[in-house]
């Protein structure tokens, strides 16, 4: 059984990090995981994206055209990728930046104003963490407590912002 | 005191991929203006480096070749020798010209090849993500010098204009900057002069331009100008290092 989650947004929205944290938590749960960034031309400005693959056996092709779920942090990425999501998957929409919803009816839409929540939490820069926890809670892909641990670890270097992110996490 | 200002014809209208506030854009415009002033666009061949300016061929309205990393002066030599009637310029960064391309620029300058080199000194490798360049300042952080450049390990920054100025072969070697309007105007004159010397088949001409890389310096564009003014200019002194008799 294999699940693929695509994270997409502006460069600078911390997409690669949330994806990494999810993969990290999944790994701790004993799953096979792969984190595949988009690098190269498309990076310069515009939409950045990144895919996490979580599987119960050796991961074959790391090239994912149709992910199980999509976490869209801005409008272009929703528009660019919503059609690719497999039926039955989750499409996470950051309503703070995406006024619209997906036209698709064969997927679960999870709409959260992550920027606003993050701002409440103290900084818009924690938006990615809010999104991560909200998505994780819904998708049940990984144990939340464990995920939270991973977030803490990640920020161990910069202790000040841990509480912020913990708070952001809980709000998610 | 109004004056009009418009896009030079030698510059295409394509939007550049450069980061906001990157001075590559200013220098591109100055080169285009010099080409327009001298009316040489249709006989000019530019040579793009490997670096952030690799796509320069999309931004100029003239024939262009794209070199391998550091080898633009050798390509320019090849073109200019077989077609002396063409106007040839290379546009190179400091990793390209001062690191891997050191041999090529010194020998082209020493042979007195009749082309023009525009050398963008931004004290870092831009395109590949902020690695140390030979021009990186002591203590300046880079992705391959996380603690800042340690001169005991990697020596002092190389001052290309000074070095080329030391060669005996006649040439036009100058260092300019584009950190404030007055400097931009002077740099424009220098670049025009460089092409003028080539047009007269006088000598090799070289314009080093002290520039910024806000992205890899991790500063706002405006702060980058200030940092360059305060940190780079005292070491990279502006002025002519050689002028042909």
């Amino acid at each position: 059984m294999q699940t693929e989650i695509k994270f997409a947004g502006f460069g600078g929205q911390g997409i690669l990090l949330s994806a990494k944290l999810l993969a990290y938590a999944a790994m701790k749960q004993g799953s096979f995981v792969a984190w595949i960034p988009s690098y190269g031309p498309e990076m310069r400005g515009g939409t950045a994206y990144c895919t996490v693959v979580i599987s119960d056996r050796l991961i074959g092709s790391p090239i994912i055209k149709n992910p199980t779920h999509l976490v869209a942090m801005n409008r272009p990425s929703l528009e660019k990728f919503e059609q690719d999501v497999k039926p039955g998957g989750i499409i996470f929409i950051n309503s703070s930046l995406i006024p619209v919803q997906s036209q698709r009816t064969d997927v679960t839409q999870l709409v959260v104003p992550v920027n606003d929540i993050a701002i409440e939490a103290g900084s818009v820069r924690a938006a990615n963490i809010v999104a991560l926890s909200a998505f994780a809670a819904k998708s049940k892909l990984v144990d939340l407590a464990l995920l939270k641990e991973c977030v803490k670890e990640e920020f161990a270097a910069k202790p000040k912002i841990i509480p912020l992110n913990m708070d952001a996490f809980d709000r998610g | 005191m109004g004056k009009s200002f418009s896009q030079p014809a030698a510059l295409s209208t394509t939007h550049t991929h450069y980061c906001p506030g990157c001075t590559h854009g200013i220098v591109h415009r100055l080169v285009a203006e010099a080409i327009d002033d001298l009316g040489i666009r249709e006989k000019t061949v530019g040579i793009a480096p490997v670096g952030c300016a690799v796509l320069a061929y999309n931004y100029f309205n003239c024939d262009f070749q794209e070199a391998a990393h550091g080898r633009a002066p050798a390509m320019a030599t090849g073109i200019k020798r077989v077609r002396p009637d063409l106007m040839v310029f290379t546009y190179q960064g400091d990793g390209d010209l001062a690191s891997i391309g050191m041999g090529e620029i010194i020998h082209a300058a020493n042979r007195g090849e009749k082309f023009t080199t525009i050398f963008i000194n931004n004290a870092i490798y831009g395109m590949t993500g902020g690695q140390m360049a030979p021009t990186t300042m002591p203590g300046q952080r880079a992705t391959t010098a996380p603690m800042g450049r340690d001169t005991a390990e990697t020596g002092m920054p190389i001052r290309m204009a000074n070095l080329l100025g030391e060669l005996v072969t006649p040439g036009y070697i100058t260092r300019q900057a584009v950190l404030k309007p007055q400097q931009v105007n002077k740099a424009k004159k220098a670049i025009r002069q460089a092409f003028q010397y080539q047009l007269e088949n006088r000598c090799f001409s070289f314009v080093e331009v002290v520039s910024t890389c806000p992205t890899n310096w991790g500063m706002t564009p405006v702060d980058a100008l200030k940092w360059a003014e305060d940190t780079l200019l005292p070491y990279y002194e502006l002025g002519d290092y050689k002028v042909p008799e």
Partner: protein
Amino acid sequence: MAKVLMKGNEAIGEAAIRAGCKNYFAYPITPQSEVAEYLSKRLPEEGGVFLQGESEVAVGYMIFGAAGAGERVMTTSSSPGISLMSEALSYITAAQCPAVFVNIMRGGPGLGGILPSQGDYFQAVKGGGHGDYHLLVMAPDGVQEAVEMTMQAFTLAEKYRNPVMILGDGLIGQMMEPVEFPDDLKTEPTNKDDWATNGMAHRKSKKRNLVKSLFLDPAALNNNNLVLKAKYEQMKKEEVQYELYNADTDYQVLITSYGTMSRVCRTAIDLLKEQGIEVAMLRPKTLFPFPEKQVFDAAGKDSCKAVISIEMSMGQMVEDVERCVKGRRPVEFYGECGGEIPSPEKIIEIIKGLL
């Protein structure tokens, strides 16, 4: 040791350190600059040597010098940078020095692109430099294998006093996967006293050592070539590594593929199996020495109708496959090399076209 989640490039850097290599010289180039960036932090912590050379040409000879002095040393680069090391590779091999070169391939030829590719097979396996020499070439299909091969590389390089090349691609360099660093792959450096220029004072025998590749006397030069050839014959006997996938079935098609591409083929094979179509894959893990006999045998299976080499190139390894299949079966090829990695669906379509 617990699993960690790491980028291929960083994992390769860490693997070198774990293998006991404390010396690294390199020049930045996408998509592998993270190796240098990682080691510029780590090596000083380990009391090792990190130096960014002025060019790949210079780096090639820094490696030669360090290896000739008897120290474990590694460099990493990507396609164009490796071309600039061609002369050095020829020299280092001729002078019989052990060293590890990593090529995280990008699209070519020329400046090409920075996305994953497998366009440097010929260069790595047939020798990009002049003269009769070979590198021992290993091709990982993921981050964990990149780590293991990098660690083994130092041991193999010293066993044969010959450079070893790890041939990866941009995806392996950029992707994160869980990795472990097997302690048992760390070996003690071999004694280099009888050939390395490690200083006469260090050695029992006070005879001096020479590291050189000039042999003006034709007989001596021919002999040096025979010495090298003998090593390559030994490698063919002792070092061939490969993986067979789904080969215990009555497969109708045999795929040969390596590295990142082989992972896509693996998925395609699984999906085809679900559709009741059996396809096998032979994945060379060492490209030189090439699993010659194994390809010949696998192609010969009665059920096998055709062999197809699938690469992120315009057709390179396929020539070795043809050579080894010796006409037993038709040998086909499919490849793309712009940076877009062919999808499992595409592979399935190609395979079905063969049936």
